[in-house]
């Protein structure tokens, strides 16, 4: 029957044999390395340079958009690609259940997101170290976190957002077999979610507390004990977990039952 690790290996090959993947990682690396340089040379006075962690955080706030978009691209193509290439017909007639094939695809997508995040951190932090003031950061006093801890909590919460967005893209890809739709819809959510939270403010509408968008950005908890609508971090995590499981469940049910007649 072969080993499950073989399936993940296969999926990884499909991701990393494509030039596109390396172009995305290269752009992400360049972008992460370039931001601190730009901050460095645009500072009017070298005495007003930002500290290491402040520079890194500014870099992350820009580069993480790219990271999310690239992961969404990989997630969207994972299933939809097989359908548009027609290779799904050869993939699904192996002695593996569809559930396991789906799981191997999901795991390889998550592995990519981790790799791209590591690339972002390595290049962003390295460059920030070279192009920042050595005098230290000023943002320490604001939250009670140390600058490094704050930066990594910020990264973690951004990654949660990426993780959910990519899982959503994965679900759309599984349900509609169209990578364009999956990418488009995910990008729409990335950019429109703040607007949606403003329109359906959980302070005004009770039910808005249960919307995914309200809780996607957990970073509010870094500076406050209560989140949107006065909920706790635990509540937010529970809502996110519920949506996450729902996305996975829908992907799984649809993929397992689908008649493949492409």
């Amino acid at each position, binding site marked *: *029957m*072969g*080993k499950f690790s*073989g*399936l993940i*290996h*296969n999926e990884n*090959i*499909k991701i990393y*044999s*494509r*030039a596109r993947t390396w172009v995305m990682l290269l752009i992400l690396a360049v972008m992460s390395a370039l931001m601190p340089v730009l901050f460095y040379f645009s500072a009017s006075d070298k005495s007003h340079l930002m500290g290491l962690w402040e520079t890194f955080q500014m870099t992350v706030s820009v580069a993480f958009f790219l990271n999310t978009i690239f992961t969404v691209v990989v997630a969207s193509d994972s299933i939809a690609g097989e359908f548009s*290439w*027609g*290779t799904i*017909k*050869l993939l*699904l*007639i*192996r*002695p*593996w*259940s569809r559930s396991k094939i789906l799981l191997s695809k999901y795991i390889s997508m998550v592995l990519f997101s981790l790799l791209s995040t590591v690339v972002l951190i390595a290049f962003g932090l390295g460059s920030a170290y070279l192009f920042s003031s050595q005098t230290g950061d000023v943002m320490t006093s604001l939250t009670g976190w140390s600058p490094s801890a704050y930066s990594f909590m910020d990264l973690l919460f951004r990654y949660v957002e990426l993780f959910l967005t990519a899982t959503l893209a994965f679900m759309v890809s599984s349900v509609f077999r169209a990578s364009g739709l999956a990418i488009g819809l995910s990008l729409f959510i990335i950019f429109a979610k703040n607007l949606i939270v403003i329109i359906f403010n959980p302070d005004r509408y009770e039910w808005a507390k249960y919307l995914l968008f309200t809780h996607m950005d957990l970073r509010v908890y870094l500076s406050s004990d209560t989140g949107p609508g006065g909920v706790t971090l635990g509540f937010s995590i529970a809502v996110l977990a519920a949506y996450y499981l729902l996305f996975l469940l829908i992907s799984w049910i649809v993929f397992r*039952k689908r*008649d*493949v*007649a492409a």
Partner: protein
Amino acid sequence: MLTTELAEPVARLQGVTKKIGSKTLVSDLTLDIPAGQIFGFLGPNGAGKTTTIRMMVGLISISRGDILICGRSIKDHFEEAVSHVGAIVENPEMYKFLTGYQNLRQYARMVSGVTKQRIDEVIKLVGLDNRIHDKVKTYSLGMRQRLGVAQALLHRPKLLILDEPTNGLDPQGIRELRDYLRRLCQQEGTTVFVSSHLLSEMELMCDSVAIIQNGRLVDVRQLKNIGDTVVAAAETLFEVDQAETAMALIGRGIVKEGGLVLEVTREEIPALNELLVNGGVKVYGIRALSRSLEDQFLEMTGGEGIG
């Protein structure tokens, strides 16, 4: 008993029905595919061939009935049943950004026991040695077809299912395909189930053929029954100059344009010829008027459009 074990059909379709909405694509299809044969699945476009094949490999669900591969249900024991099957469904689609070899490695990783030697062996069998390390996007349709057969054979399946394998192949490619399917069947004992709407092609390739139309099984017949053709009387045309005289000499037959037509066995022909020659009739030729499968097929399915 061992003999009954061997005689067990590789695949059994039992009252297989596929409905999508109110449309019935395949209706109550019951068919046994005997082991060690090249078995043809013949029908006009839209008859339900590909739908049936998709059900056999579990790509689509079966509305009613069941399909057993080596005695295991494709519905209830998918992984076990499908492990005996190698298939190409419609066109052989491959990962174009990978080489032929990398594509084969993909499928080799999904089953146990496919060694490097086996991969090389299969590549040689389909004759792709020279181009196997090129990217698939540079392959012609014929080469992709070969790679498709290679991936289907990797795990030494008992049943090889090929959906319209001659589509897009040139005459030489078709001939080669026919030859290695024959070799496969004889040397490795693989049962081959091949669908086509090309009747003449089926005649050359298959031992038996099932004919399907409008989702229903119309007929199953053996094509290569050597014993039969020798013994059975066949309509034979004697090309002669005086058909009337010939009929008088032999005492039966029908006078047709070009000569005399009558049912004779192969063994009778020399004696009849001698009789005619001695009777002063000039014999220009003698040939059997066996109807091709195509005639029979059109007769059977003729007159009905895609419905």
